[in-house]
């Protein structure tokens, strides 16, 4: 390992160790900072997982409560985001399983539509319309594919998680993650093409 890589790994470890120590102490300042730091990424993941803004916001809050309660279980060997996403996922899956004992897709089909947040940046009316259309197109295409494919795609391409990290979050083997990405993209791209046409 070269010096730069070594420095990077050590830096990451010291940061995750500091987070682990703070979580063990249930340090409220640290939790406030983490909530602010991961707010958009976590909500985005939950939105794509549930396709329901209200549920995603509930799960967002429950996830952080769980982080507080189970903070002592966080292993600083892993990225905090991986642990955070796996908590959010488990909570959501448990909730959906209890609410309706079918796959995630069952819930998604029942939803009237995806209500992703409107953008705050509004440089011009034209750009606003274009953004709105693009958002709706992507959301509709994502909602149309199986939940496990959508989850893998969002974690990989939006959150930028490595394949091993996605496997850790979802608890699925690496081969399954690769297959979900491939099948997910194959299901998604024709939908996007169709929507554009």
């Amino acid at each position, binding site marked *: 390992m070269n010096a730069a890589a070594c420095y990077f790994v050590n830096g990451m470890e010291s940061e995750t160790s500091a987070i682990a120590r703070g979580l063990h102490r249930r340090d409220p300042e640290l939790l406030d900072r983490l909530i602010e730091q991961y707010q958009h990424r976590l909500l985005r993941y939950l939105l794509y997982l549930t396709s329901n803004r209200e549920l995603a916001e509930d799960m967002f809050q429950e996830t952080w409560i769980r982080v507080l309660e189970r903070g002592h279980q966080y292993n600083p060997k892993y990225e905090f985001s991986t642990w955070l996403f796996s908590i959010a996922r488990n909570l959501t899956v448990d909730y959906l399983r209890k609410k309706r004992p079918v796959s995630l897709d069952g819930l998604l089909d029942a939803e009237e539509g995806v209500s992703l*947040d409107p953008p705050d940046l509004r440089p011009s009316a034209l750009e606003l319309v274009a953004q709105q259309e693009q958002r709706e197109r992507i959301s509709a295409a994502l909602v149309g594919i199986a939940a496990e494919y959508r989850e893998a*795609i969002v974690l990989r391409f939006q959150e930028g998680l490595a394949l091993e990290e996605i496997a850790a979050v979802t608890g699925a083997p690496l081969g399954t993650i690769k297959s979900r990405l*491939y099948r997910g993209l194959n299901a998604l791209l024709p939908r996007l093409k169709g929507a554009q046409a």
Partner: protein
Amino acid sequence: MTHDPHQQAQELIACGEHDVSDSQQAWLRIHLHGCASCRDYAQAAEQFVRSLRSVPVVADLALVRTTQMRVRLRSRELQQRRERMWLVWMSCILVGLSVAITTPFLWRGWGWLAERAHVSSPVWQVEFMIFWFAPAIAASLLFLARGIHLTDANGTSQG
């Protein structure tokens, strides 16, 4: 791994370039150079990723503030519970010590009284056991029942 080069190429594209080895990347580059359909697929995937990343999904401030407040309240609750548990444990330890120290003296005192009252040994010993242990057993059963009740309530609410 599939033997179909097109499927193999698309699988590599789906994994993303950072999770593909150098040799696989080199193979993919060569394949894309000569295969228009896979090149289209790669371009469509790239376009999708760009679009996905450009979708602005943001958490609003109210949600963040509410979450922070809920986390702080829960943290305080947990802290108070921990303090209460510490008190319970300390009380248990003190009671245990007190019982260990005083029981032999009380046993002797009870025996002395029984001797004065001309009560036979088995009778006063049974009486002592009931007098001494019955309240503790009753209290333990009550605590146990309450503990089970609390566990059930937590399980139901968390579920």
